[in-house]
């Protein structure tokens, strides 16, 4: 087989995947961008408005609030689902007895297998201002002044949703970090111990650098997930009260399907795509530069 025919053969093999990607990924992205240049909905003829929908977004306080909420979501998720999960995984692997380790891993993982809708409803009960466990617990320890209508006050609604999301995701990311830590050769830790390194030093000098690829993947997934978040908010508050817990996903949905502003919704979708795309590219570039070879 000549080099040329082998090259064409390669293209042939990847053609089905390329076609599927083009039809179901790239075409929708490009078409969504085109749609964002129109003012349109299901009931009226479309007309070209250029970048008006993006101007509307720039002047829309709810859009900026949603973006701020997504950013807060991303920062908290990074701290909890990457930082805290990594520490949790390291503690599980280093200090916990192997029998107990399996049980704890399962316990931490259970929230991840609960449907987000079920978890959302469950937490709606926990946050219920009248019968919710959170307020009851605070009252039981004399912290009555700390009780809130957690999902019903603009100052606490978003934080309450973020807390639920962390509860659900920390176990999942911790288990992934456990897998990454188990791949690190034990000799490194033994050598470090011989050199007098304590557990904390071992964590920062061996574990953290050796799970960098997993960390990068987690960072990308966590940040992307934070900007794509929809279900948690939709189930628990639908963006309320007074749009205080809107995120880009719910604001997009509301504009598309409740307010008949499909063009504006497409513009929001483009913004979400650009944000997540840029974050992914930056992360990939940074990772390539810092890759640690075993």
């Amino acid at each position: 087989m000549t080099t040329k025919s082998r090259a064409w053969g390669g293209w042939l093999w990847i053609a089905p995947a390329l076609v599927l990607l083009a039809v179901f990924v790239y075409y929708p992205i490009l078409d969504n961008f085109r749609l964002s240049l129109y003012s349109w909905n299901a009931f009226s003829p479309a007309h070209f408005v250029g970048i008006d929908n993006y101007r509307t977004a720039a002047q829309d306080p709810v859009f900026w609030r949603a973006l701020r909420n997504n950013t807060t979501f991303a920062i908290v998720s990074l701290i909890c689902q990457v930082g805290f999960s990594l520490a949790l995984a390291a503690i599980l692997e280093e200090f916990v007895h192997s029998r107990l380790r399996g049980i704890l891993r399962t316990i931490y993982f259970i929230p991840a297998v609960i449907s987000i809708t079920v978890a959302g409803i469950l937490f709606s009960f926990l946050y219920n201002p009248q019968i919710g466990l959170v307020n009851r617990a605070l009252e039981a320890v004399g912290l009555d002044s700390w009780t809130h209508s957690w999902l019903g006050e603009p100052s606490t609604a978003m934080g309450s949703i973020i807390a639920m999301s962390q509860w659900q995701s920390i176990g999942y990311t911790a288990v992934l970090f456990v897998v990454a830590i188990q791949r690190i050769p034990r000799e490194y830790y033994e050598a470090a111990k011989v050199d007098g390194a304590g557990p904390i030093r071992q964590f920062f000098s061996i574990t953290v650098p050796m799970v960098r690829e997993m960390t990068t993947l987690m960072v990308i997934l966590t940040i992307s997930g934070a900007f794509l978040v929809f279900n948690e908010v939709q189930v628990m508050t639908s963006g309320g009260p007074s749009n205080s817990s809107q995120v880009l996903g719910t604001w997009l949905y509301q504009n598309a399907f409740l307010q008949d502003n499909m063009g504006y919704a497409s513009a929001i979708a483009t913004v979400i795509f650009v944000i997540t795309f840029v974050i992914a590219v930056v992360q990939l570039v940074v990772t390539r530069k810092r890759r640690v070879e075993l």
Partner: protein
Amino acid sequence: MKRTPIIALACAAVGLLAIGACGAPGASSASSSASANLASPTTKTGTISIITKFADPRYAPYFVNVAKAYEKANPGVKVDLQQVGDQPYKDKIRVLASSKQLPDIYFSWAGDFTNKFVRAGLAADLTSVIGPDTEWGKTMSPAALKTFQYDGKYYGVPIDLDAKFMAYNTAAFAKAGLSGAPASFEDLLSDCAKLKNADYTPIAFGNQYGWPAIHYITQLNAYNVAPDTLSKDYTPATGEFTDPGYVKALTQFQQLAHTCTTKGANGLSHESAQATFINGKSAMHYLESVEFSVLTKQGGAPASTANSWSFFQLPAPSGAAGDAKALTGAPDGFLVNPQSKNAALAVDFLKFMTNQQNAQQLVKQIGWLSPVQGSATESNTFPQLRQALDKINGASQFAVWLDTVTNADVANAYLSGAEGLVDGSQTPEQVMKAVQATAKKIRNSAG
């Protein structure tokens, strides 16, 4: 060689963009003719497609049974019935409308929700078959028919009658020393203080998704603003919302929310709040007549509540400038796709669904009121439901739900503002300013 994939992808991208740019999105244009051949079919054959928002297991079986009964009566006809939930329906029907895949018959809320389909030429003009002077139209409540009227033509077949009432626990009222329903809005506020003293939450109110507050505001707007002004403002092309009555309505709502209702209502669902009324912790609850059945023994309420509740229309404030006899509510209904090849058969099916026998079955099986006159009898309903029907018949007009009667953006401004009024983060003036700004934007785009 390394450049090849990039070039190929770039070419593909440009190609796709070019393909995508071929057509503009959305509805091509409003059809000038939304008329279809509605004459009764001589031979009934074919398939009718219908979509409802009644997937709730309490309601779905009724529609399934009607479809089966129609098929049995007309062996040549197949009814393709799809039922989805309330919220998913809003997405689905828009996607179907946009892709020109509307079924022969589809559900619609009264108000601007229906009017959007009418303006886009997606709803058949049914005046010739269901107008008030027609044989079918005469069987219907005129007020229900009128809510689906647009530019003098009738587009919808009402399927139920729904209105909002304040249910109250008569035992709780007696314990608080109250003799009966308050005569005015001011009396209601003072009654709340007495009920609080008797250890009751005066009004069970869960406003987690905003619409329960909107129902109060719908009624208070009707009380405080003249009907003509309301009608003008609820129309997207002419809405201004500058009448001082709107601020008065919001002020009254905020007073009610802060004086009478459950603390932290924005974090509580309507159903959770309703549970506190059912179990006797709250003295009043503002609910729709279609929900009345949950207050009965058959609906699962304890005897202490089921045997001691009555209701009243939210009382009007003294000296209010609007219509004191308007009642919040509206019928739900079905529209017919004017492009349907089976439009006549679809109308025949809807006539069957709303005949006296099926209307009585709707009242009995689901506990809703039917717009078909004479369908609520002593044998198929309970006293409070019949009293509700009397109140509906005695109302001067329906004050259609604010979140469906007006443009969706305006409704959203109201929805968001009402939540702010409940938690005290916004004032009535601030809310109306946002509503006016949104209405102006909609007016400009409509013009």
